[in-house]
């Protein structure tokens, strides 16, 4: 199948390139959070991002370089009298817990794949309904293919369904799998072949016919004629003119289709 996803570029690493972020014991993180909020939060902020008196610890080089409390332990135990930080007579376990809490908070800030998208349902559902009536009803129906769609997906996933729909789905009776892309190859003899594209480049086009047969053709300056059809072209074209407000409104409407 032709990959429509973009290639991975630049300094934006894939999750794979970054590797799994080692997670500490959740119970230790929870204990560390409790100790931290009680004793340190007043100055450093309950989220450790800094307060009126204490610096942001998620950007602290001492904390970043710390391993299992080895670097922050002495600071906690001795305090920083010159900077007004008192000493805290914590046990090694408590210091380890605080270290685990801080490193968990740092990895949550650094690991953008783990960021949680907040409430995106802010639009006007009525306006969204009007947009739907004006743009979507020639293909979709809220009593047919989209019946109950608001109950089937989280809002972000639902929004993604119209901004970048899946290129395969099931439809018809009996239900059968469908691919958004089809390709038709017409030979100089007039014979033509239509199917799901398997490969498409300047030198070759290959497809799988509805029968399951695989066909491959050499491409050159003199043909064959190759036509690609995308059943979701409307959704691609939509991106060139839909406004952010219309995206929010349409999302708000689709969410109501429970």
């Amino acid at each position, binding site marked *: 199948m*032709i*990959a*429509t*996803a*973009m*290639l*991975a*570029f*630049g*300094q*934006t*690493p*894939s999750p*794979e*390139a*970054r*590797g799994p972020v080692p997670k500490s014991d959740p119970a230790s993180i929870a204990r560390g959070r409790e100790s931290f909020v009680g004793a340190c939060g007043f100055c450093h902020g309950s*989220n450790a*991002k*800094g307060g009126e008196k204490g610096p*942001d610890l*998620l*950007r602290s*080089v001492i904390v*970043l*370089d710390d391993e299992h409390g080895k670097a922050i332990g002495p600071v906690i135990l001795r305090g920083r009298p010159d900077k007004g930080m008192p000493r805290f007579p914590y046990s090694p376990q408590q210091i380890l817990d605080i270290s685990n809490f801080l490193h968990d908070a*740092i990895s949550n*800030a*650094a*690991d*953008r794949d783990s*960021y*949680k*998208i*907040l*409430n*995106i*349902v*802010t*639009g006007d559902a009525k306006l969204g309904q009007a947009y739907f009536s004006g743009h979507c009803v020639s293909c979709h129906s809220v009593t047919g293919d989209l019946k109950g769609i608001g109950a089937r997906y989280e809002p*972000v996933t639902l*929004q*993604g369904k119209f*901004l*970048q729909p899946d290129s395969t789905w099931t439809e018809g009776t009996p239900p059968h799998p469908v691919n958004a892309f089809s390709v038709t190859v017409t030979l100089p003899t007039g014979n033509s072949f239509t199917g799901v594209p398997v*490969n*498409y*480049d*300047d*030198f070759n086009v290959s497809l799988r016919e509805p029968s399951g047969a695989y066909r491959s053709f050499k491409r050159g300056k003199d043909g064959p004629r190759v036509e*690609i059809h995308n059943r979701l072209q409307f*959704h*691609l074209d939509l*991106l*060139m003119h*839909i406004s*952010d407000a219309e*995206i*929010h409104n349409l999302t708000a409407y689709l969410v109501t289709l429970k």
Partner: protein
Amino acid sequence: MNSIFFVSALCAALIPAAICGQTLDPALLTRPATDSWPTYHGDYSGRRFSTLSQINRSNVRHLTLSWIFRIKVGITPNAIVGGEGPIPEGPPSDPGVSTIKSTPLMVNGVLYFSTPDNAWAVDARSGREIWHYTWKTRGGIHIGNRGMGMFGDWLFFETPDNYLVSLDARTGKERWHKEIADVKQEYFSTPAPIVVGNHVLVGTGGDSLDVPGFLESHDPETGEIQWKWWSAPLKKGDPGFETWPDEYAMRHGGGMTWLPGTYDPELHLYFLGTGNPNPVLTGRSRKGDNLYTCSIVALNVDTGKLAWYFQPSPHDTHDWDAAQTPVLIDTVIDGQPRKLLAQANRNGYFFVLDRATGKDILTAPMIRTMNWSKGISSNGQPIPDPGKEATVDGVLVSPPTGGATNWPPPSFDPETGLFYVGTSQAFSMFYLTDTDPHPEGWGAAERDAGYFGGDLEAIDIKTGKIAWDHHYPFGGGPVGILTTAGKLLFTGDGSGHLMAFDPANGDILWHAGLADDLSNGPETYLLDGQQYIVVGAGDQLYAFTVEP
């Protein structure tokens, strides 16, 4: 005795001078390469145009495979092992480690190249390994490595855990290594060091946390630091401080230096593109233009002092580094000889500057999907639309964070006057996820929203107009490019092909199917009087030639 071991043994014991003793003549660095490829871009200009024409439009159809070299990474039986990290439990699994993104150096018949934690010398005549060096890592993101720099017999490369490592080119033995940044602050290093005079210029990367970017110059003999240039001001009163709200924001403001720059020996200036500001996708805590992030800067190569800057993305909130190659072009405009600098920027615009002053001469859009700018200011800068900065409920933006183009090297052909670049057209939704007044890291999430394919574009540097364009509906896009006086353009298509185009009109003249997509910038050189084209695709290096 297998053949690889045999060659290694020969190098080590018998005839090091004959096979491995390969001194780089510093003069090679200041004239266009023909019988060598002595620095990342082949020469200092970044044009990636070769004056060689032995392989040309009339014989390119006879271009044929000479050899393939497949890399084996990690602690292989013959590997020379260095590094500060623990012995790894198994072979490296990051795909970046086994992907050749570097442009190999070719000096006196030997190719030198690297991937994250690994470096090789390969006999350019036979495609056989001469030595392999591997580095035990302390961590860092292993996404890619752009290659090596060379001074005399000494090689330099950077590691994901931010060491500058120097090797003896003859043997692959380590001379020294110096830590340049802290891996625990999420720095990771990918650039190819650029050697200018007795300066080894090294940058770094990493924007997961909010750390400052810099460029360093090191002494090639000792590795000692000569100067350091920070890409954001350090304190109030420093140049550019008025473009940040406070010292705290500028010291956590990013601006990574993750691609090699270019150099003009007459102006004595090193030209470098800097990366995005931090936090990456939200600008609430860093109001202002955030100099010198997302900027093209000109630095005095002896002092690191800033001569001028131009900022393609003021107050960037979409991860659009201006790190792409600043290509140096000498041409005549309106009867006047001009020293220019051109950049195809990740933000979707093409820029031409006067490289003596940094003044903008031309700003032109490269892609039709772009929707983030309200126009061009009188000084040639795009004007960001604040309505396209991430919100909680999301905004639709083109290009996405990956950009209209990216690191793969473009090319300028002085014979056509066209600048060639691979572009990509797509949208993404940007959702603000960190609503704190002091967001950290990226601060927002991105979701793909529609892909319109990639293009190989030929841009007229005098008008900014697209002279011709080759569209790939399902792939292609930002891919490395080489042009030659043989009236050929070499690049890849995202479908595993190496292709030769006619640079004048975009006709395809030749192609070959490789085992993977082109993953580096193609290069060319003359060896034993014969011209070669060398490309990296995945874990393999391919050499092509026309047999006499």
